[in-house]
């Protein structure tokens, strides 16, 4: 072709709108890395279910402590070992706070008399059945089979209180019509056996046989009440409230007797016999006004009478927050350490690697113990926190280091450096985002193991988190384990929670790992 040096301008013409073949823009929508990962995650049914379970558990941990009227430390030893009870199931034999018992006559009549007294006390104020519905069966061996209500089996108790309190209860009784105070019994009529002497539930005639209390029955087979009764002139108990029977006195031998409701004891106090269930309600609604309307433990109560639901959910909340906080800190430290070590390489890398080698060889228990010894005064949470951080970041840092080794000599990094980006910018703007996916995944995998370690440490009692309103699932299990054979519900609920949590976190983590691994794309078919 002829070589034209200078082409005159008029030779040029605009092409105009004629069809020029550019690259055709793709009609399909671009899929971002995250969206791709998400869609792959959703294909894995198990992981999706696990994610939903995790969300439910987290919501349980967040919301429940606010919904229950109890605090973690609210405890009442009288309701220790109370069984799980849900109002919905009150009329069934399941989840009703009762347990089936097979007993000899003496134990049975104790609860039966308790039921009779408290239940028939006053019209419309019943429902204090120690024996559920007062139903029982007698076996061929003469044993009694019945369902014992763990909420009402406290029956009555002698309580010493100041006169003001005594007046307050009477005022409460008059206002609400709920009977708290029951007629008292002369000390001489109480059981002779020392172990039963202070037991207010023996309101009937008893005798002592072989140092054990036995019930004396009348001809019809009923218990014989031995309430303290006297003529009106002799009574000085200052009682002016509900009476169980004989509001106008009981006529006997031509004289009118009244039940005595209080006994003066030394120090100007009075000793009254209270129905503990009603007394609990009185205490919480009238005196403390803390929102508790009745003893009602949906998942039962622990050996010290704490509400398991509240404790479990608070423990779970603590575990979640704690694990997330530690994972975040570990991720930060690990990212910085791994970035420096991986980016600079050489001698720096070698030194840092040796340090992590030594650190990772130290067993967790030693770290915890040393921290515990040296920081006895500080809070246990801080010790736990430091112990988890001390060696926890090593895994993260090696992940980051590996990614840095992989990417630091790639062309785009060299380009960035040529353009004048400083080390910091190259490290955190250009290389670090590559390791974010694996880092997040390893976080999800680390959280359950952290929760597990925390649970086992509190279970072993090395770290005790029982102070104040903080508790842990491990503490609950440790407290309930001695009673595993008699009251399995105390360990059952925390265990189920723990198992569910670990299972779903593992499934979720595995799903997440697969989803963020683009090499698996399409392999699931």
């Amino acid at each position, binding site marked *: 072709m002829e070589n034209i040096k200078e082409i005159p301008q008029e030779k040029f013409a605009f092409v105009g709108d004629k069809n020029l073949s550019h690259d055709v823009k793709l009609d399909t929508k671009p899929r971002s890395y995250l969206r791709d990962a998400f869609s792959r995650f959703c294909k894995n049914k198990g992981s999706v279910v696990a994610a939903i379970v995790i969300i439910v558990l987290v919501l349980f941990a967040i919301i429940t402590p606010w919904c229950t009227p109890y605090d973690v430390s609210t405890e009442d030893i009288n309701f220790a070992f109370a069984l799980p009870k849900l109002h919905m199931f009150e009329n069934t034999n399941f989840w009703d706070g009762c347990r089936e018992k097979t007993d000899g006559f003496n134990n049975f009549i104790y609860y039966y008399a308790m039921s009779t007294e408290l239940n028939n006390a006053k019209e419309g104020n019943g429902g204090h059945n120690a024996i559920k519905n007062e139903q029982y069966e007698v076996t061929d061996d003469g044993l009694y089979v019945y369902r014992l209500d763990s909420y009402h089996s406290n029956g009555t108790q002698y309580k010493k209180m100041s006169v003001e309190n005594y007046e307050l209860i009477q005022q409460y009784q008059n206002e609400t019509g709920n009977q708290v105070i029951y007629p008292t019994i002369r000390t001489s009529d109480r059981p002779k056996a020392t172990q039963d002497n202070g037991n207010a539930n023996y309101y009937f005639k008893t005798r002592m046989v072989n140092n054990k209390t036995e019930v004396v029955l009348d001809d019809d087979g009923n218990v014989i009440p031995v309430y303290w009764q006297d003529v009106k002139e002799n009574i000085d108990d200052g009682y002016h409230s509900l009476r169980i029977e004989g509001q106008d006195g009981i006529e006997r031998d031509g004289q009118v007797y009244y039940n005595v409701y209080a006994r003066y004891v030394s120090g100007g106090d009075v000793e009254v016999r209270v129905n503990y269930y009603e007394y609990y309600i009185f205490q919480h609604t009238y005196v403390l006004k803390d929102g508790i309307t009745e003893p009602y433990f949906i998942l039962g109560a622990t050996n010290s009478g704490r509400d398991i639901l509240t404790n479990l959910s608070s423990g779970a909340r603590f575990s979640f927050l704690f694990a997330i906080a530690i994972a975040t800190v570990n991720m930060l430290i690990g990212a910085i350490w791994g970035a420096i070590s991986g980016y600079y390489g050489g001698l720096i890398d070698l030194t840092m690697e040796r340090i992590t080698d030594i650190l990772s060889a*130290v067993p967790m*228990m*030693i770290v915890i113990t040393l921290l515990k010894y040296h920081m006895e005064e500080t809070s246990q949470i801080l010790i736990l926190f430091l112990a988890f951080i001390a060696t926890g970041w090593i895994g993260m840092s090696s992940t980051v280091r590996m990614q840095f080794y992989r990417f630091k000599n790639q062309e785009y990094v060299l380009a960035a450096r040529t353009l004048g980006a400083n080390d910091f910018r190259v490290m955190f703007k250009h290389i670090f985002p590559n390791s974010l996916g694996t880092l997040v995944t390893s976080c999800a995998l680390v959280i359950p193991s952290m929760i597990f370690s925390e*649970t*086992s440490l509190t279970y*072993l009692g090395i770290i005790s988190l029982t102070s104040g309103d903080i508790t842990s699932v491990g503490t609950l299990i440790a407290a309930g*384990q001695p009673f595993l*054979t008699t009251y399995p519900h105390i360990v059952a609920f925390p265990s189920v929670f723990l198992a569910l949590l670990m*299972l779903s976190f593992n499934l979720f983590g595995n799903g997440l790992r697969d989803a963020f691994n683009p090499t698996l794309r399409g392999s699931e078919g």
Partner: protein
Amino acid sequence: MYMFKYVLKRLGLMLLCFAVIMVICFVLIKMLPIVVTGSFGVDKNIQYRKLEARGYITNLQWDENKINIVGFDKVPILKQLGLYLKRIFLEGDFGIGTTMPQYEGQPVWDTFVSRLPPTVLINIYSTIIGVPIGLGLGILAALKKNTWIDHVISTGVIVLISVPSIVYALLILYVLCFKLQLFPLRMDAGTDYLSWSMFKSMMPATLSLCLGSIAGYARFTRAELTEVLTSEFMLLARTKGLTRGQATVRHALRNSMVPIFPSILSEFIAVLSGSLIIEQMFSIPGVGRLYLDAINAQDYDFFMLLSGFYCLVGLAAGIIVDISYGFIDPRIRMGAR
């Protein structure tokens, strides 16, 4: 020769690492105040004199009547370290118990050795039960991949791996020991460790230990074996006329064992350390319980010995895994350039 050098190098590094950790531990422990608890029948003065005799404290100060020791000076930590090491290497003396009444004044090494059998036995039983079952299940799942057998095994494995040992230990305690009464609730007392009733009473703990390792081995084996089964030399083996069974046993299994066998070896090392949780839950008088008691009572000599022990076991298990690769598979030449 490569191997020998490599092993030596690894051992040297391990010992160095161990020494650094233990020196740090020693210094941190010796920085703490000395705990002297004069329990019943134990004179505080004697305890102070014992500590003085071991070179931990010096310059005892008596009160006016020369009855009680009221003060003392600490020996510099480096000097204490020197004395400590000298006693260990020259006399085999790891110190004496100071704060736990039942071990007061006794050599910690003897106590430690007397506590070792239950821990080791339970772990050995668990390994003996766990490894064959785990491998068997893994092989079965890999051979019957994507059938219902595989699905059942895989699901069980996931459940067993995820559910923490606390939970199934409790379950075993409640169902097997209490409801079905197959085993006693607590381990038998005494030191007749090889009797039948002792074996039976160790079973619950053994079971709860081995469930986890069964699941671990099953998963590992399944993953390895499925990978080997799909490789090309398996196709070649079949092409040259081997039956499926021959090919699987001679070629696939042997190759898949390369990564699995080291982990079994390391488990045999790790049997020494045992599990704190299992020992606590089944009240087994093992090393783990001793460790827990010692750290609660702040008995420093016990702490040093047991920490060193746990640390060494962990390090050794790691090294065994690395080195055994070279012995098992001649294709792998450790440390070769």
